[in-house]
């Protein structure tokens, strides 16, 4: 059984913009939300910059318990999910809860809270035999990665399959992909899908310092995230969440919902190469793109825009450029490919979902978001990266791709409403 999967609602909590409107304003203007870290004192770190969300949970209608006890990444997800459900017009009271699923991704889950309480129970890292009496209440909710999907499922009374996906930096794409399968294959009619991460904490910043993956451009944070630019020097950490309401196509039509676009394909592969390394050939990402297009029966020449992983590390940018050329052939040179990480940073597991939402908005506005800060071409990255300025363009089939630690290579295809050839 293969059923069509519609997108009927989106919600986003991103650096520089909470809510889909503010988020799109940022992307369309090519503004960057990267800055010096304010969430903790980053003194001593190699990379002291990030794209932070100006987020106050009390401003977004969350109940007191979530505001006081839930991790930041859970709060992000709850706010983004509420926006997406509201946007979809879905009446959760009138929808069969047993046919409503949740699929949410996160790469590092509750690590910020885990680190906070670790400091308390270890007396500042002094003891291995940690003192449990110093821990704050409800720490187990940070320990369990499934808290993310569980909290969102409870809020919207979803009682179908509820899962948390954690495939590193492709978590967001894969969570949307799993949701796509869940609906296409008939296990649910509605799925609240997306991802969230709040990794701007000492341990996560320090572990990326240790492998020099993050940008040390502390003096010029606004211009530090430079995907595909010859002067790039690593990614800039981000945080945030994005959630989509995915719905079986006829289910959405029957209730008169606005269909924003369709998810028309998804695939993922492992590169079986290295936990952090990427080849310069891009073979496995190309395979993910090829399989995705096969599923949707879309010819590569019909792709109008590629939303890149574009993290701004040298190996990623080359890997990805090679992969897209391998899959799209000569058409790759005619296809704009941009990275919104230049503006909102790299929020690990969340960014895949944020990028899918950016694609939904690009389809809606018929505008390709730019790669901010792109100034100096790299001879090995020779595609059209949409430098600095958003570009109006007729968009129908849009591809979002991602790579993650562990070797994950994923692709999601979005097709404009009514524009899908079958």
């Amino acid at each position, binding site marked *: 059984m293969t059923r069509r999967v519609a997108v009927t609602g989106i919600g986003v909590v991103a650096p520089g913009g909470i809510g889909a409107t503010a988020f799109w304003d940022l992307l369309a203007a090519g503004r960057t939300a990267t800055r010096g870290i304010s969430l903790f004192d980053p003194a001593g770190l190699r990379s002291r910059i990030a794209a932070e969300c100006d987020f106050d949970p009390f401003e977004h209608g969350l109940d007191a318990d979530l505001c006081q006890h839930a991790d930041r990444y859970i709060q992000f997800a709850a706010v983004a999910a509420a926006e997406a459900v509201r946007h979809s017009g879905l009446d959760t009271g009138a929808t069969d809860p047993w046919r409503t699923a949740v699929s949410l991704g996160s790469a590092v889950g509750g690590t910020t809270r885990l680190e906070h309480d670790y400091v308390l129970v270890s007396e500042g890292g002094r003891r291995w035999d940690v003192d449990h009496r110093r821990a704050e209440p409800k720490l187990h909710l940070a*320990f369990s990665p499934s808290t993310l999907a569980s909290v969102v499922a409870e809020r919207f009374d979803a009682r179908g399959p509820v899962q948390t996906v954690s495939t590193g930096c492709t978590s967001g794409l894969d969570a949307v992909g799993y949701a796509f399968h869940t609906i296409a294959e008939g296990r649910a009619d509605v799925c609240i899908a997306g991802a969230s991460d709040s990794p701007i904490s000492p341990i996560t910043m320090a572990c990326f310092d240790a492998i020099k993956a993050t940008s040390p451009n502390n003096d010029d944070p606004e211009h530090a995230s430079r995907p595909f630019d010859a002067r790039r020097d690593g990614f800039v950490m981000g945080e945030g969440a994005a959630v989509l309401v995915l719905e079986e196509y006829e289910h959405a039509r029957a209730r008169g919902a606005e269909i924003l676009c369709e998810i028309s394909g998804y695939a993922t592969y492992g590169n079986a190469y290295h936990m952090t390394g990427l080849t310069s050939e891009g073979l496995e990402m190309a395979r993910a793109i090829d399989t995705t297009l096969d599923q949707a029966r879309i010819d590569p020449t019909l792709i109008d825009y590629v939303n890149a992983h574009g993290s701004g590390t040298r190996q990623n940018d080359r890997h990805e450029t090679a992969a897209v050329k391998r899959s799209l052939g000569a058409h790759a040179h005619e296809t704009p490919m941009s990275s919104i990480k230049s503006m909102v940073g790299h929020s690990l597991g969340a960014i895949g979902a944020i990028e899918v939402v950016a694609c939904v908005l690009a389809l809606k506005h018929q505008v390709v978001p730019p790669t901010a800060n792109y100034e100096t071409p790299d001879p090995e990255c020779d595609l059209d990266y949409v430098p600095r300025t958003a570009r109006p363009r007729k968009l129908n089939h849009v591809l979002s791709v991602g790579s993650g630690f562990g070797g994950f290579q994923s692709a999601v295809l979005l097709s404009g409403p009514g524009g899908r050839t079958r």
Partner: protein
Amino acid sequence: MSNRRPGRAAVTGIGVVAPNGLRTDAYWKSVREGLSVLDLISREGCDHLPLRVAGEVRAFDPAALIEDRFLVQTDRFSHFAMAAAALALDDAGLGGEPADPFSVGVVTAAGSGGGEFGQRELQKLWGKGSKFVGPYQSIAWFYAASTGQISIRGGLKGPCGVVASDEAGGLDSLAHASRAVGRGTDVMVVGATEAPLAPYSMVCQLGYPELSTLDDPARAYRPFTEKACGFVPAEGGALLVVEDEDRARERGAPVRAFVAGHAATFTGASRWAESREGLARAIRGALDEAGCAPEEIDVVFADALGVPEADRAEALAIADALGAHGTRVPVTAPKTGIGRAHCAAPVLDTVAAVLAMEHGQVPPTPNVFDICHDLDLVMSRARPAELRTALVLSRGLMGSNAALVVRRGDDSAR
């Protein structure tokens, strides 16, 4: 990728790293005999914690099963996973790099991550400074570590995934794998391993209201009894090879079992009374997908949480979904002898179900002697029975319910 129509999802390989036995034969011997290995926790730095009893994998020597470098580069949960994956691939006759790397994928479930590794690196960060955090922290702590390492070590480029879930995620991962096979991937390496017994990970688990804090290993985890007082955690787990049946036949591999049906529902964290309906619906959904009548179920591997309200909900869910057959079908919970290894618990149960069908014996429920629910719970010793179809149940502490139907494989595999 092949153009032929995918066949059924066949189990052709099993690799076990369990508290009661390393490798499948040793695990089955302990399970069949109803051996309980629950004991006081012996890991360094844990003596003073109010969580006293667990199922530890004490005989595991990672250096004997995986390359030395992984001892430094990854966490214990990935050591378990890599060892179990290699055992499962060997069992399936699929050792060595695959001819088509894209034909073999990996999916694991993970509920606790690389906690011991993470605690060491947190100690370096906060005790000494950020420059003392090592490069492998970025790949060892996160939930995706095991899938990535298995994929790289085996040269496996097929669909790779990670369900970071509560306990029921273990069954979800098996469903993921069988669906990937249904979409055309030849082979999936699938399962879960956990290592949640490092000091800080244990502190994190203390908040679960369902946790047993009794210090007597014989009494700490006794589901379905009047003395039920919660569950005890465990480490270890299992990986299986799930393969397209036709592909297995072509290469002459014995089929040990079939993953026939799965369904999952959600009824909210710690809302155990409501899990009755959720679990019953999951059972019906799994039977439906398997094309299986309730009467065909020959044995049930229970979730057996050990919380009175949850035990009652499970007994009622079995009755709701299986009707009168629910009170007659043998039910067992071998995990009372080893504890609950989070996502790995239902995967170990699935392995026990396959082995029970192969050996024609329902294993007993260790430490449980007198139950207060209307179930035919197998206690004390294994019960011989012709077993063709098994039902494995799992519920998670964050609210998921899942059911998996497993069918017996070839007689020649027994």
